[in-house]
């Protein structure tokens, strides 16, 4: 009966984690259905009022902003990441390759807070960009880069880039070089080969990368907190404010549940839209 004797032992740690995760989710879910009792840390009775509150313009606005920031980040990361991933896969000189790899992977080891702090130094009123532009005489007074959606997106792109590049490179490296050789033999120059063969065949990787980038930024906290400075709010920041400044745990939980549902919805839609692509099998 037990054909794989090690299966249980090997899956035990994963099962344990899964149980803990499910317990936490259930706790959040049940908090989201409780009433908020001002001045108390304990929730009140069951209610759906929290979910109705989500529709208030103040909160709906944050959801919309989050989706917009995530979408912009995903798109910009894709545009920046694709050439990097392409070069990473195609460049043949070992030295160039290593340099690329370092550029792409190092940010992963720095953590979100450190990277975000670096961007504060770059984007601030006395930061690198403004100092440079002013000393060149291109602008008279500093550009407002901090505390803007632009600044948040720029920093989030940096945070998301490694994941995007790794996923795109994985997709690209699975495309057999014989496809582009075949196209060349049929008279296609480099640009045509890229547009008609490499790019279409890499679309599954593009979808995977974009989806992951989107989900990855959806839960961003430190970056919008530090660079948005309260003026660009994403869901995590709202959860933090409500949960840890106002101690409104039930509504914070409701925001979590709604955020999760929204992520699932967006990812589901992306998957659905990209279904035709899955038929492209790349050996």
């Amino acid at each position, binding site marked *: 009966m037990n054909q794989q004797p090690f299966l249980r032992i090997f899956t035990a740690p994963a099962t344990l984690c899964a149980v803990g995760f499910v317990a936490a989710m259930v706790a959040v879910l049940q908090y989201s259905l409780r009433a908020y009792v001002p001045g108390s840390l304990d929730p009140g009775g069951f209610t759906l009022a929290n979910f109705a509150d989500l529709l208030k313009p103040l909160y709906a606005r944050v959801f919309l902003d989050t989706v917009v920031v995530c979408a912009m980040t995903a798109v910009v990361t894709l545009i920046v990441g694709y050439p990097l991933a392409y070069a990473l896969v195609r460049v043949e000189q070992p030295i160039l390759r290593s340099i690329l790899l370092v550029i792409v992977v190092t940010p992963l080891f720095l953590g979100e807070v450190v990277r975000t702090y670096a961007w504060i130094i770059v984007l601030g009123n006395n930061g690198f960009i403004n100092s440079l532009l002013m000393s060149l005489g291109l602008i008279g007074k500093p550009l407002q880069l901090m505390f803007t959606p632009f600044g948040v997106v720029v920093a989030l792109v940096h945070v998301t880039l490694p994941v995007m590049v790794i996923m795109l490179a994985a997709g690209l490296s699975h495309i*057999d070089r*014989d*496809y582009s*050789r*075949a*196209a*060349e*033999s*049929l*008279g*296609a*120059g480099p640009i*045509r080969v890229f547009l*008609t*063969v490499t790019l*279409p*065949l890499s679309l599954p990787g593009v979808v995977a990368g974009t989806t992951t980038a989107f989900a990855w930024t959806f839960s961003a906290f430190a970056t919008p907190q530090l660079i948005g400075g309260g003026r660009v709010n994403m869901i995590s920041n709202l959860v933090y404010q409500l949960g840890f400044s106002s101690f409104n745990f039930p509504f914070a939980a409701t925001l979590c549940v709604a955020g999760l549902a929204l992520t699932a919805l967006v990812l589901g839609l992306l998957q659905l839209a990209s279904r035709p692509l899955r*038929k*492209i*099998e*790349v*050996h």
Partner: protein
Amino acid sequence: MKPSASAEGEQTAVHFDAVTKRFDDVVALSAVTLGVGRGEFVTLLGPSGCGKTTLLKLAGGFLGPDGGSISIEGKRVNDIPTYQRGIGMMFQNYALFPHMSVAENVAYGLKTRRVPRVERDKRVADALALVKLKGMENRKPRQLSGGQQQRVALARALVINPTVLLLDEPFSALDKSLRTSMQVELREIQRKLGLTTIFVTHDQGEALSMSDRVAVMSEGRIRQLGSPVDVYRSPADPFVASFVGDNNRLRGQLVSVHAKQAIVALGDALVNVPGESLSGLEKSAAVDLYVRPEQFSIVAPEEPCAIKGSVVAQIYQGGHVDLQIECSGGTGDRLLVRSPGEQAVLRWPMGAPVGIAIQADRCSVFPVG
């Protein structure tokens, strides 16, 4: 069989002149010279790693040579990129574009050449008819069998009227019967269109049955270039003798050489062999005889024969029987003997003592070492 049209200027479609290619410290090709005549079917045959694919890639422009020059239709193409060479290439794994239909795959090379829509559709239809794939236009490659994918790849390469068709082990993924029928079909189409073709294989049967000429390669060199009959009957060196077709090697001692004839001692027996390759060799030098399995005949042990032994294996092959004979004398040497028909199965049962006579006038002899 076409007369060899190599190096005759305008008749030559593809010419490799002293082409050398190195990968780091591996010499993949050393000074290879080869001319392929217009409309000729030349096969590159050799063991794995001998440089066949490298030579084909050089012709296609997927690699550049380190030395020597390559010309197509009399024009030096060393520095011309693949997409301007007008070649047709068929890849071992087909490399059909998975995101395009059969018709789109075949039309690809016509689109890059800006062939107008109407003419394009007609040529695609003609090419698909040629490879017997009418009605499959809208399928995707993954909806085709291996043999059908093969045909699409062929149609895609043919439709652009390439100056030369390059094929890298195109049939190695097919099962035997499909492979045989594809071989016949490819050859028919090639003849009909008069296509200059360079074909790569490590299957010597395929090489012998399809080619006008075969280039036998080993370690980055062409060891022999000739018609299939030449290569099989008169191998240029021991490598070709043992690589092309089945062969038995017998060690002997030279007794005498007279111009075209030589006498070699095999144990106690003396055999007359062709002597061209032995001139200048000292008496009693060691020589190797290469004898094809069909150049042996089995006789009763008491009859006059060169070698004695006993049957250790019978391999019934339908049209003929292959017998393995272990030579007496305790050396354990085994010979492969091919006997037409099927009488041999009953006539020479397992363990039977036999004598082997050699039709030595057609065997090949090379000095040892």
